[in-house]
């Protein structure tokens, strides 16, 4: 019996749409449908099958008139045989899903290798023959190859998406953690931190920044960051900021704030945050209190350039100033005078009255020399009991001689040490630029040489410089 003829007998209320149409004139159409149909009678024998199924059975024997288990013993899913049995015995329709039973029948796709079974799904449909009688069984076979392939691809894509989603989620969490970390670091940072958008409008400001600039953060956010500063600094820094932000370079400025009568120096730095296109997505800035730093630096600079005992400039600083004065005098065609002062018999004070008396003598001498000179003149302690004076715009020789005499008199004034008084003297040498030398070192050497020359002359003359220059003028307290 051919398949359409066998299927033509099907009828009843429970036929699937395809099978319901399998009557008489429609029989030839069964060979055109794109799924398999096989009719099994109440005795379990195959009554017929359509062309779709015949083509996919390959070189299998024609099952017509035989039981499924006999035709494909061992090559058919036992669950299908059970389903057919349940259908014929109990009238059950059974779905054998592809997922649980991927290849219940030994089917091959036309053109595929004989070793590769076709993936398919079988529906076992109970139906009543026309005119009554025992239940028949209609197998409806669907090719699932393409659906299975698509689902495999979809599952793989879903897996990839899950991996990417997981990565994105992890990245987001890390970003969140970093953001929290940054906020906490910023909160605890000893420096002020602020952030702006690309237009310079303040978007973030930590507590330290607000404290240093005495701001109310809530009112400041959304305004230009320069508005955090005093009005005069806004005027000063606006053009600087415009230039720096336009050129995408870092701004670094120091400014002084009067905070309740206390002067505070703040250093403000701000630079661009560049995006992937090297465009500024905003600016980030720091505010550092540099008051102590500046004070420290000032102290260090003073220590480096001054003698700690007398407060006068030291030898190095004196040499620098001498070079500068000579350069200036050369330009202005002026004269520069150098005085070289040596305290006479200073060693004796140290030896007889102790180092404290010596220090007092040095400090007093320094103060007296300073008092004898003009404000522009530089007085230095070169070391030991040697002092030097730089007179940048040297007066006439007579005036210089007057200065020398004034110095000698001032230093010779009695010096109070403890309960007594001492008298000391000095020898002074002088050299002039450009008259005596043009080189600073040579000029100083000339003054030094002249000082010794005069000291020798004074000794020979038995004068103050030759006599013990330090003598006790009043060893007992006046009573």
């Amino acid at each position, binding site marked *: 019996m051919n398949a359409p003829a066998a299927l033509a007998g099907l009828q*009843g*209320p*429970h036929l*699937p749409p395809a099978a319901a149409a399998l009557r008489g004139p429609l029989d030839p159409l069964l060979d055109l449908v794109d799924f398999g149909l096989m009719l099994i009678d109440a005795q379990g024998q195959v009554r017929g099958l359509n062309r779709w199924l015949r083509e996919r059975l390959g070189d299998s024997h024609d099952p017509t008139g035989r039981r499924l288990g006999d035709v494909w013993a061992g090559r058919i899913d036992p*669950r299908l045989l059970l389903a057919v049995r*349940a259908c014929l015995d*109990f*009238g*059950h*329709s*059974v*779905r*054998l*899903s*592809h*997922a*649980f039973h991927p290849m219940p029948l030994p089917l091959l796709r036309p053109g595929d290798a004989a070793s590769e079974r076709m993936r398919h*799904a079988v*529906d076992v*449909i*109970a*139906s*009543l023959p026309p005119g009554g009688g025992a*239940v028949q069984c209609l197998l409806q076979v669907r090719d*699932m190859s393409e*659906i*299975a392939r698509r*689902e495999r691809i*979809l*599952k793989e894509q*879903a*897996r990839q998406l*899950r991996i990417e989603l997981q990565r994105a989620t992890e990245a987001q969490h890390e970003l969140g953690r970093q953001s929290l970390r940054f906020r906490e670091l910023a909160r605890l940072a000893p420096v002020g931190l602020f952030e702006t958008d690309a237009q310079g409008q303040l978007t973030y400001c930590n507590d330290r920044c607000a404290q240093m600039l005495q701001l109310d953060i809530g009112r400041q956010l959304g305004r230009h960051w320069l508005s955090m500063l005093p009005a005069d600094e806004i005027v000063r820094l606006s053009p600087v900021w415009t230039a720096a932000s336009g050129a995408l370079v870092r701004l670094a400025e120091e400014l002084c704030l009067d905070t309740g009568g206390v002067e505070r120096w703040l250093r403000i730095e701000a630079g661009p945050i560049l995006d992937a296109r090297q465009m500024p997505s905003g600016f980030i800035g720091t505010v550092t209190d540099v008051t102590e730093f500046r004070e420290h630096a000032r102290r260090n600079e003073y220590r480096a350039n001054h003698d700690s005992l007398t407060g006068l400039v030291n030898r190095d600083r004196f040499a620098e100033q001498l070079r500068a004065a000579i350069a200036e005098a050369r330009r202005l065609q002026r004269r520069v005078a150098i005085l070289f002062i040596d305290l006479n018999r200073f060693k004796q004070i140290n030896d007889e009255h102790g180092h404290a008396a010596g220090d007092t003598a040095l400090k007093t001498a320094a103060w007296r020399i300073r008092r004898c000179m003009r404000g522009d003149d530089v007085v230095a302690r070169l070391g030991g009991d040697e002092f030097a004076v730089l007179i940048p715009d040297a007066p006439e020789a007579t005036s210089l001689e007057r200065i020398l005499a004034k110095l000698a008199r001032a230093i010779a004034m009695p010096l109070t040490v403890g309960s007594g008084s001492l008298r000391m003297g000095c020898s002074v040498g002088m050299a002039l630029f450009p008259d005596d030398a043009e080189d600073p070192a040579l000029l100083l050497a000339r003054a030094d040489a002249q000082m010794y020359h005069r000291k020798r002359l004074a000794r020979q003359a038995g004068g103050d410089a030759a006599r013990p220059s330090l003598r006790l003028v009043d060893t007992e307290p006046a009573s």
Partner: protein
Amino acid sequence: MIHLDEDTSDALAEAFNLALGEAAASFAEIVQEEIVMTVPVVELLPRTELVSRLQLLPREGSSPGGKLCSIAQRFDRQQGGLSTEAILLFPEHGSLEIVRRMLGDSSPSAEQISELEQDALAEVGNIIINSCMNSLAQIFGTEMIGTLPGVRSAQPDELFAGHPGSEMVLMARIGMNMLTQQISGYVLFVMEMSALQTGIEQIRNFFALDAQPA
């Protein structure tokens, strides 16, 4: 008003329990894993009452207000005069989990059921419903011809939109446990009043109970 007394419902539960045992054995064979089904609780309910119960069902194992997955088959007596629609209902999420476990898919569940998964779910429902129907057919003393299962996801009140309101429903509540998965579902037999009346008489006769319901 038709009422299913305690004796009748106990007897039905016992009959269903035997049938579900066979269904569980079928699953175990398919998925190579033990599946335990709980003893069913059988009740007879008006459809409106059923919908109220179903609206609570998803809250037990899934998100509140979730959809239900329905697997439905129609059964007709060969001689006519007795027909029923058998419906298996599970919370959608739980049923998908079970099917995916059965298929050995350990990846996190996608929200949408795939075509292959839907087919597999249809087979799961098909096995349970056919097993229960075996019992009912034996009780009714007749062969019931069944259709293939149809699967759909819907809210409880949408499930019976096409049914007349006068229907009574024979409901068997079952639980399905599979290792870490535990879900509760309902097997429903929706019948017209006339068919139900016949059905109840058949049930009482079968169990040799009083001819008239209590």
